[in-house]
């Protein structure tokens, strides 16, 4: 029975099917609202789904310079680890794979999709992909420092609540927020939330920080040699990563909202995810241009890490 529940979790609800459908829908909303902000009609909300199925129908060309097996296998490993990450984040109480230390697991599971893109790109043997790999790696390096600071701050806040020092488990964080209000509203966590809003587009690779896959400069970076199904899987994992990161934001800062029915909670959480996407990714995409690589790195390691550090210190002092 437990295995059956796990399979349902994996394949249906928070797992493969639901997160791809909702991820693609979220990407559609993102592109539509972005267009509306530029006073144009914009594509139908189903557009990313059409893109996905169109790419499935295209021919997959494997260039001669490519290391064949890594080139073909990379997208699936990226997708698999993204799905596993979704299982770790509690959506309104439903958590497929709880554990004592979810945050560290999520931190590392989030690097695998970008690692899959990088190894896939470098396996394709194209010079554009080489530059794309280097830039994607600098993007990972830049958002990792603020992300760990934010997670330590939230872990410390929730841990102090349960007087066990710290906690890395998202379940406890959700219980803490259910007990005394979402984290976002206690003001020592405001800087961490703002820092997280910057980390999300950088991790997903959305416009202001998509130095890795800049289609104008280095022709889609690591994805330059991909076509057909592997490219479809990469675009799908890009959409799901949007969903995962916003879900992580809600779990860390807006968790513990529990109305009566379970499905109402789920709808509320998904609504919050959509709003967070609009705020941090679509708005940022509409009003700013792409940063240079070292500007982005300096911005993240000074301003954003400073914000997260501020909230860590505040939590540590006990506010």
């Amino acid at each position, binding site marked *: 029975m437990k295995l059956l529940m796990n399979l349902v979790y994996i394949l249906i609800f928070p797992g493969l099917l639901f997160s791809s459908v909702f991820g693609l829908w979220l990407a559609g909303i993102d592109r539509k609202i972005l267009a509306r902000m530029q006073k144009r009609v914009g594509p139908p909300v189903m557009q990313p789904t059409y893109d996905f199925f169109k790419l499935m129908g295209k021919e997959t060309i494997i260039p001669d310079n490519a290391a064949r097996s890594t080139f073909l296998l990379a997208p699936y490993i990226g997708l698999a680890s993204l799905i596993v990450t979704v299982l770790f984040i509690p959506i309104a109480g439903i958590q497929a794979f709880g554990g004592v230390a979810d945050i560290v697991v999520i931190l590392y599971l989030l690097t695998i999709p970008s690692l899959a893109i990088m190894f896939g790109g470098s396996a394709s043997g194209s010079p554009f992909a080489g*530059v794309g790999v280097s830039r994607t790696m600098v993007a990972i390096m830049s958002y990792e420092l603020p992300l760990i600071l934010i997670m330590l701050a939230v872990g410390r806040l929730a841990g102090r609540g349960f007087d066990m020092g710290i906690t890395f488990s998202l379940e406890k964080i959700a219980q803490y927020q259910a007990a005394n209000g979402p984290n976002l509203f206690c003001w020592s966590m405001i800087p961490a939330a703002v820092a997280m809003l910057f980390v999300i587009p950088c991790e997903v690779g959305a416009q202001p920080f998509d130095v890795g896959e800049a289609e104008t400069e280095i022709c889609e970076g690591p994805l330059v040699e991909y076509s057909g199904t*592997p490219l479809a899987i990469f675009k799908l994992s890009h959409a799901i990563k949007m969903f995962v990161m916003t879900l992580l934001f809600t779990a860390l800062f807006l968790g513990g909202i529990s109305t009566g029915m379970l499905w109402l909670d789920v709808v509320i959480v998904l609504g919050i995810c959509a709003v967070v996407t609009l705020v941090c990714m679509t708005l940022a995409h509409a009003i700013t241009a792409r940063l240079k690589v070292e500007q982005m790195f300096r911005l993240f390691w000074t301003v954003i890490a400073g914000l997260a550090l501020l909230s860590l210190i505040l939590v540590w002092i006990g506010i």
Partner: protein
Amino acid sequence: MIQHFPILSIMVLFLGAFLVVLVGRSRIARTAVVSAAVLTSFALMVALIKPVMIDGQIISYWMGNWAPVSGYAIGIGIEVDALSLFFGLLVSLAVMLSGFYSFKYITQDDSPDLFFTLYLMLAGGVMGIVLSGDLFNIFVMLEVMTFAAVALTAFRSWNPNAREAAFKYLVVGSLGSTFVLLGTALVYGQCHTLNLAQISGLLSVNGINPTMTFAFALLFTGFGVKAFMTPFHPIAADAHAAAPSSVSVLISGVFTKTGVYGIIRVSYFLFKSMGMSSMQTGLVFIGCVSMFVCVTMALNQHDFKRLLAFHSISQIGYILTSLGLCSAIGIAGGLYHAINHTLFKGLLFLTAGAVLYATGTTKLEKLGGLARRMPQTAALFMVGAFSISGIPPFNGFVSKWMIYQAAYEKAAETGSIGYAFVTVIAVVTSVLTLASFVKVGQSVFFGELPVELENVKETPLSMRIPMWIMAALCLLTGVLPGLMQQYIINPAVRATLDYKGYIDAMMGEGYAAAHLADTVPLAEAKYTFAGAWDPAFWLVLFVIVLLGVTVAMMIGKSGRGAATAIADDKHDTFFGGEKNTFSQVGGGDLFWGFKYNFRRYLNVMGNAHSGVVNDYVTWGVIDLALIIVYCFIFM
């Protein structure tokens, strides 16, 4: 009968060394002798697991049966408790696998029989350090190990770098050995004995007087040199780059562990100084500095093996940090990381050796696209790269997870935010490690194949078998942490923390009780590890990947079938429309954003690693002076 196993496992290796000199000319005889010696040593260690680890029995063996007379230990004692056996297993495993690897690897060089003599001397020395219960015996084995390693570093004497690296290693290595010798002399003057158990008993009775603080500083720094702590790490980089790869496996995988073993024995068991929080912060500080400095240096390297060398020191920084935390989970994390490090670092050095064997160079600029000619070596490299950067299915992840949790629990427990920064530095270092292995992956195995490497062949089978064994072990220790801890890590942690059994086994019953009545154990020996890692979890990942691949194959049509079809435009790399001329992005021109922001820091560090041996020695002496002053202030 089993108390003869430890001394046998050391003697077999030395015996093998001498036999190889006699019979080494013919290849078959040499291979037989070496594999026999190495296999028996490993088998003896495995045979000891049952009694020592599971039943908790501690084996003590007096050389020449000179048992202690009226409470004073005269003879040399060989003592094996869970901690020594843990390191013994680690050492003999690495020696065995690296030995099998070097049978074929060394045929490219001249006089392989001399190589194996030195190799077995080195292996015997290392086993001696780990198993002996006598302080001076540890020093003797230390000397045997260092000189064998220096000779092996200079094995390829036609290469000027090798000679220079060996000279530097000799100078700084003997500097460390003199520190250990001075410390031993002082301890002997104070306690009139060289047996570890008795010293620990006497020290805890008469307390720590200034000479003992001085002795502690000397011993600590001496073993620090062997573990290539921060100020001593440049020599390791030169030694690894120049030594044959199977020896670099031993230098990075095994020597550094003897240094760590020495530090554990000295600070936890002999002087019991880890109880004081000042000592803990000192070790954690050294660990963090060496962690961050070496990883940023590694990002700048242009040579595959030098990069790996800097990484092995940064991983040692991880181990030292977690040992410095002095909590049960900290020590467990450190020891777990030690065994993981030996496995994945060994694997990475063997892949570097395979690349050197196949192409003749390890310069990152000259290599590229090797994955198409050497697919298995590329796969092995990726297993190693994923494990060292802590990617979940592999073993690096579990031990790093334990270290983060230990650091952050320590922060919460002591309430000082400093330890929270330790976790942050550890995570940032792990990302920088990932970055440098993406750099190596891109510039050596992926990207475009230069024309001169066109007819590179896959590494021979006899070299690939040990690599596959190590890769399998990397995965196993990553997926089954519960098993690993229960049988190997926890006994070692218990042995580190309450050592009364060790003293009783050595000096007879009741000795420990009489001497150690007042000391409180440093930390309780049980800990709740953060959620066992249930293997059902990997069923999840495997099902999804399988599902994804089948769906894709069903719908998508895959492109070119045979890889050997004629190169036409369709399958040429997109080069902006041009014919794809050779343009490999790799080596120095990666991570421009990071290097630009850190340029001042990297320039300073670049100049500091000047390569001049007197700079390194001055650093070493300054570092010793600092540690002595630190110990006198806080001890």
